């Protein structure tokens, strides 16, 4: 623990020197990071927007990892979820009461489908999920671009995006004048749901058993193929729902650039949160601070964007040393020789 603390300090010092090198004042830089993330109601709202966008894919990753399924594909699932939500939403003219649930479900369904492909590949053929989800990420991006620009192009859209959703399909904000919407409580609800599912239901129990010791789980009558598929449908569904909340809550349309890699950062978030849904919420908040505060580092402390990236890297490195997080590798460790 002490060495980890020393490591953290060293990394922060490195971050400070990177700012120094960029001609920025490190103290001002860190101050800007915090002020930008937490300095006022607007800043906090933006931080929570980022937290929410990270939370969905992070929960998705955590759930899959708990099942022993190494889902590197939350990014693709999120994109497909957003895509479906955007394509449907841009064409839908319904009051929000009926339309919003429909659009959100479309997103969840899209993500579930995308995750389900990887799940089915493993359940049916034993196909390695890391490869499958990595490939599906690339295919999702290409598919989104193709559909949005090509056959399903919305008239009037200039870029690789859909037309704007009707305001009735926008998620209601919970803090007027900000982009903070009911997506946040929805995310918390999903977190609570995942937590309950894992700790209190038979399905959650079987899912965790499959992840922790597949051999013992098989002997306990647990159908691992079904678990792999179900876990990935759920995991993908959560990530896809996240994509749909970005579309309906933040951008009000689908855009191929809707994610700066939330699905990849989510892996780190999930692991820092030790795959525990409630702790993942806090980890997502920590990363949300980083995401939103880093914008202010640019604006206020004149820290260039790339240095911000470097600092994020250093902070994530510092977080990795926080504890021996139970990565999927460690989940496999239960299968010992002898």
């Amino acid at each position: 623990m002490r060495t980890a603390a020393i490591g953290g300090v060293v990394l922060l010092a490195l971050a400070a020197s990177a700012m120094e090198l960029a001609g920025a004042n490190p103290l001002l830089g860190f101050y800007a990071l915090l002020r930008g993330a937490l300095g006022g109601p607007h800043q906090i709202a933006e931080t929570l927007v980022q937290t929410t966008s990270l939370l969905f894919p992070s929960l998705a990753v955590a759930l899959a990892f708990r099942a022993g399924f190494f889902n590197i594909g939350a990014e693709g699932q999120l994109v497909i979820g957003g895509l479906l939500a955007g394509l449907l939403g841009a064409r839908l003219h319904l009051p929000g009461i009926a339309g919003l649930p429909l659009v959100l479900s479309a997103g969840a369904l899209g993500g579930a489908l995308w995750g389900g492909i990887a799940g089915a590949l493993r359940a049916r053929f034993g196909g390695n999920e890391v490869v499958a989800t990595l490939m599906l990420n690339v295919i999702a991006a290409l598919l989104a671009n193709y559909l949005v620009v090509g056959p399903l192009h919305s008239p009037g859209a200039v870029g690789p995006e859909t037309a704007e959703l009707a305001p009735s399909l926008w998620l209601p904000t919970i803090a007027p004048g900000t982009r903070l919407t009911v997506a946040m409580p929805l995310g918390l609800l999903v977190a609570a749901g995942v937590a309950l599912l894992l700790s209190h239901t038979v399905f959650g129990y079987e899912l965790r058993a499959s992840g922790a010791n597949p051999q013992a789980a098989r002997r306990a009558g647990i159908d691992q193929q079904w678990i792999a598929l179900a876990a990935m449908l759920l995991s993908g569904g959560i990530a896809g729902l996240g994509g749909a909340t970005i579309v309906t809550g933040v951008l009000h349309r689908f855009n191929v650039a809707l994610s700066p890699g939330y699905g990849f950062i989510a892996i780190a978030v999930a692991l820092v949160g030790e795959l525990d849904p409630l702790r993942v919420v806090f980890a997502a908040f920590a990363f949300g601070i980083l995401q939103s505060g880093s914008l202010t580092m640019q604006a206020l402390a004149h820290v260039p964007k790339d240095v911000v990236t470097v600092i994020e890297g250093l902070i994530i490195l510092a977080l990795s040393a926080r504890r021996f997080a139970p990565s999927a590798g460690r989940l496999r460790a239960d299968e010992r020789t002898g």
Partner: protein
Amino acid sequence: MNVPGRAALELRAVRKVYPGNVCALDGVDIELVPGEIHALCGENGAGKTTLVEIAAGELRPTSGSVHAIGNVGLVHQHFELIGRLHVWENVVLGFEPRRGVRLDAEAARARVRALSQSYGLELDPDALVEDLPVGIAQRVELVRELARDPAVLIFDEPTAVLAPAEIASFFATVRALAARGAAVLIVTHKLGEIVAYAERATVLRAGKVVARFGKGQIELDAIARAMVGGEIPALAERVVTALGMGLVARDLEAGQGAHALRSASFEVRRGEILAIAGVEGNGQSVLADAIAGVVPSVGSLELEGTPLQGGARERIARGVRTIPGDRQREGLIVSWSLVENAVLGDQDRPPVRKGIAIDRVAAGRRAREIVERFDVRTTSIRTTVATLSGGNQQKLVVGRALAGAPRLLLAYQPTRGIDVGAAALVQSSLIAARNAGAAVLLISFELDEILALADRIAVIYRGMLSATMLRDAFDRGTIGALMAGAQRAS
């Protein structure tokens, strides 16, 4: 060689406190003399493994000192072998023979062959370790340590996985080793072995040395009393029960390769223990797995007159319960608590299942029952199973199998690695299950256990099951010969 009488290994005032304030060893002194075989015994959780790991330098003591002359080798009970490497690779790891910069595989194989010949331990250097049955894997670990020419060699429960004939040859090896001047320390729960082979014995209880036996003082009852701090409970009485039909297997085949089950036809009545004797690796694990529904099989299986079909889930629902051979790999999720492990396999039916939820109160009740009935030594039912000693892990697995009132109990080496007191408890509960009308299939490598428990017995050799014999017809010699494959000898 060493000066006789001078200790090859000396532990003084060794204390070990695990995280969580578990005091596993409390001021232990022990010394090993070159050329002698020294036995270390004690109940499950007494601190034996902790002690030998400290002696071998694998674990740091909290306080106290360890002095050794020369190499100290430790043969673990849960082997430290690498499954996906070949035997020769495991043996030479760390001091590989070289030819230039290259690894000299031929020399390594030759070394393995030479060693296994000189100690009479037959080994194929090119076998993949993960394909080996436990008994042979044990040999690999032994040869690996022998290759390092140790001054002190320590074994943690080496015979738990060996067949009678193998045990004899194992001790022959150990004696040869001692004769060459090595000091040997053996951790074992089998008191008969101590009496037969050891020259000295030390008994641990709750982390303290409670008795030492010198040359000529070793006596079975005294050791047993010292271990458990009282008398060993007697086995439960066998009560004659109604003999309805339990399990019927016809022409059962399963698995592939050397350890496949080639053909088995037998029946186990309700209220009966059928024991399958055999040396590990002759198809018995596949047999158990086929009945449990974990591996696919050909042939027919019936339980109480109805075909036994489907996977593990369906069979559990029919009342098939198992005590698997490898508790850590197949039986438990060691990172989970006792409570969660106590209901593994029963998660899908009442009382554990309530709607879609797990009834945590019922699960806790189940865990407490098992802990009480089987005397599982643990600080709490919420601690992780990883912190339990091996024997206590085994008791948990056994207790779980019996908690569900099984119709068919598959017990694979049920007393592996547990102390005499606990073993008596486990054996008594197998008999109790039988008396209650369950069909019990006992698979064991230990003749003593088989002779103590079985109503009928069959022998498995190279995947073929012999005809079953009645309890009265038991004859050690015949069974031993059948186990070794001498079919015509009978």
